[in-house]
């Protein structure tokens, strides 16, 4: 018996039990649907259920038991971009609240059916604020993007960035990415990374980081995954932050019937690469202090 069919058997056995339990206790049922069950997803489901005083089930998109599970769920949480893309294959009732998590802003753009969504990536303006806190409030910052259209998709307009002291450099305007990068690094004190896995791919990141470092210019962001590679600092939301916000979204939606707009996570942490900071001779404030400074900036 291979691993897959073993899991299938387990689920088939568990399902009647699950239905029975839900019937008896009449508790809130959260159904997490994903394309790949990893520890992170299970943790997200468990902690969200605990935080919302609910029960959670995690099922694969392809799970045959999904129809039954949907029927008994109060809220469906789509986890990850694949779940959003393949949602058409799911028998979701029109009145079923559907929330998405561990997706990006871009992933959610055409998913109009979502009641709410929590973006995975940090908001760019938070990264900009972090860069200003580290480098100085009036320091010119540069942002690299493929094109104005792509920038708009991922975040905002160049004008909006300029108001925050950030100049956007578009690769499409140059013969090569490096030409754009060289111009950017010449005129700005730091590079703020936008969450664009295509641009900041494993293939490109080496070139971007080494080029910036040669000129003593740090990369801020785009996400915590880049810290180990050599980015100086980033804001990020860890699993507890995601759970905290997800619980808020679910509770607010169910309670009021008004689901919060898809958005960024207001709860976050700051992560530094201490070695890079020391090598660039930068003095960084304590992470928690930085978090509270950034929170203060975000408070209306």
């Amino acid at each position, binding site marked *: 018996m291979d691993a897959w069919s073993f899991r299938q058997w387990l689920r088939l056995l568990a399902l009647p039990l699950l239905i029975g339990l839900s019937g008896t206790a009449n508790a809130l049922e959260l159904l997490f649907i994903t394309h790949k069950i990893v520890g992170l997803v299970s943790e997200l489901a468990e902690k969200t259920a605990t935080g919302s005083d609910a029960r959670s089930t995690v099922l694969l998109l392809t799970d045959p038991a999904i129809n039954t599970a949907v029927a008994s769920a109060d809220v469906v949480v789509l986890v990850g971009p694949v779940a959003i893309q393949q949602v058409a294959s799911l028998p979701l009732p029109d009145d079923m609240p559907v929330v998405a998590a561990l997706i990006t802003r871009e992933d959610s753009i055409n998913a109009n059916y979502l009641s709410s969504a929590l973006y*995975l990536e940090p908001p760019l303006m938070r990264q900009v604020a972090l860069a200003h806190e580290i480098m100085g409030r009036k320091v010119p910052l540069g942002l690299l993007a493929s094109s104005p259209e792509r920038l708009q998709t991922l975040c905002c307009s160049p004008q909006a960035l300029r108001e925050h002291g950030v100049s956007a450099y578009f690769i499409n305007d140059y013969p*090569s990415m490096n030409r754009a990068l060289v111009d950017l690094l010449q005129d700005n004190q730091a590079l703020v990374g936008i969450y664009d896995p295509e641009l900041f791919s*494993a293939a490109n990141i080496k070139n971007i980081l080494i*080029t910036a470092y040669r000129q003593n210019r740090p990369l801020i962001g785009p996400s915590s*995954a880049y810290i180990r590679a050599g980015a100086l600092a980033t804001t990020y939301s860890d699993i507890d932050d995601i759970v905290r916000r997800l619980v808020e979204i679910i509770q607010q939606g169910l309670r009021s019937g008004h689901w919060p707009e898809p958005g960024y996570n207001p709860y976050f942490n700051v992560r530094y690469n201490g070695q890079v900071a020391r090598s660039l001779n930068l003095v960084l404030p304590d992470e928690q202090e930085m978090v509270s400074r950034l929170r203060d900036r975000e408070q209306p």
Partner: protein
Amino acid sequence: MAVLVWTLMVISLFCIADKAMANNLEEELIPGLAESYRLDDEDLPVVLTATRLRQPRAEVPASVTVIDAEQIEAWNVTTLPELMRFVPGMFIGHGDDENNASLAYHSSSPSVMRRLQVLVDGRSVFRAGIASVVWDDIPIALEDIQRIEVTRGPSSATYGSNSFQGVINIISKHPGDTLGVRLRYRNGNQGEDDSFASYSWQQGRSANRLTVQINASDGFDGAGAENGADELRDSKRHGFINFDQQRNFDGAWQLHTQAAYKSGHTDIRKSDYDQVAPDQDTRQGMLMAKLSRDFNANHSASLRAYWQHDRRTQETFVRVPTALLDPALYDLYRDNPQLASQGVSVPVVSAVASGASAEQLEALAASAGYALDVSESDLAYLQEIVANTGGDLSNLSQQVNGYTDSNITDERFDIEFQDTRRWNRSLRTVLGVSMRRDQVTSETYFGGKVNNDTYRFFGNLEWRQSDRLIVNMGGTYEREDANKDAFSPRVGLNLLLAPQQGIRLIHSEAVRSPDLLEQNPNYNVIISGLDDNYLGISEGTFFIHQWPESRDLDHERIISTELGYYGRFSGPDIEVDLKLFQEHMTHLIADSIQLRSLAIGSDSQIDIDGAELQVNWRIRPTDWIWLSSAYINVELKGEEGERRQQRVDTRLSAQDSVVASWHHKAHNWSLTASHFWYDAYNSKYSRHGNRYRRYEISMKVFDRVGRFNPWLGFHLQHLVDDGSLVYVNQQYSTTNLYNVQVGLNF
């Protein structure tokens, strides 16, 4: 003024230090969210690895001044050595006979720069045959320099011999950082005429750059020149082309190759016998390749090899007394230099002609007031000199014309392997081995070709005893054909007060190898194409000469102890480096290296102590201030005669110096103003020392039109004290030196 600056700085230092101590940042990385859903940490390479990252300044076991491309552009000076004025404790002079800028860190000869190592991307441009660095012959444009790291203090432990008082490490820009075309033309009132063109491009996984530069200058105007006149013959014109390629391969391999060809003409002033100026024509070529690999985040290694060739042609016509080319006088000089110098004087020759004995010659000298030893073989040489005149002593005053040269070709092959490894969080090592062959060909200086092979083993161990204390132990062991073996150690303790603040205590020792001419000369001035003369020769050798095995010089040695402080603060954004030092230099070769300097000893001594301060303050993103200051107290040791020789090594140095620079960059213009102030300059010669002050203003206007970036620049140097710095003829006939530049980047 220096005292005032120092007091203010020390007070502000303590105020800032107090504040920054509170900002003790958490060093440990917080394990963030493994965004395994989208892009895992593991998918991304660790790019800025432990071995690739530069050491934090607070942890460096040395005093280092870093001049970045940003400063080079802001100061807008025309030559490399002029950048060194901004380094605390560094002074610039100009050779009298060499027409070459010379640098001294604390103290050194103003004519020949031989106690500082200069590296360009790891390649030593320090000449082996006649120890010196010829700045005009370095084929790199200021526009192509990424940064210059000046290690202030003995660095043989890292860079090998000749890194005596310090190292100037020039690092060129990566071609990938200069993509496109850069053009620049400069013209100024001292004959400045300088063109620069560079093109960088990417091709697959390689970035390439081709740079061409031609520059000329009229140099100084002379002691008596006024109103813009130029009466000193010290012009120069140099040009080079260089190619730089950085190429990445699979498996974290990287290959950096460089090639350059350079040609130049340098005016040299005439000496006593010269009929025409013995100008230098130079041709240089170099090839270098460096293969490096990051094995993992904690281990990297590199192999670098280079070849460089330097041909200097210096020819002149001379007019000398025929008698000075007499082979008998040449032989007598080797036997009895003192007698030979008197050998063709009329009283001596007349006495020999009339049959005087050796004793009678000694008596004759004694009656003239000087002691002379005359052996029987000496007398025989003198009799041969008289016989060669054919009995007509009036021949001794005959003058003859001829042609002579002091051509020299230096060639160097160097290969070096270096391994950098981080064993664990607290231990890092750098180990390496290198082999170098220096090959010098010169009939004049060496009677042909001479070689010197050098083998080096070097290593440094960095041990983080705790988060607060870092211990560095390093050393270089050198084995050399021409000199004795030498070991240069360095021990450094860095005590971190905060991540960006530290106190360092460093003990380092270094050596300078006597060069081939100092140690093993075969120096003969051969004059050929002679007119008719009473000796009947068409080619003769000037009687004063130097021969092999005439010397047994020890390495020059320096022992330095320094106590330093480095601090970087964020509010205000300020960087402070303070150094208190004591240098003890022994076995110094103080005698000037001239044809006549037969007896040269490596036995003199200089002690120097003092303090240096460097402050970099970024007031706003658009403004920065650079301040460097030094107090240097040089003490000459030994007898009065020795001290007189050593004084030349202090001519360049000022007891107190302050250099301040302010830069402002606006949207489409920038302005940099610098002030140089040296006091008690050359104090061992003049009673109270001289004062030298000057201002520099550099302005730039730039714009962007589509993909074109045109710019216009202006540079003014105003001399407050218009006297000469070192030699009296090194003066300008105006107090304002200026140039304009026009450039286009696209």
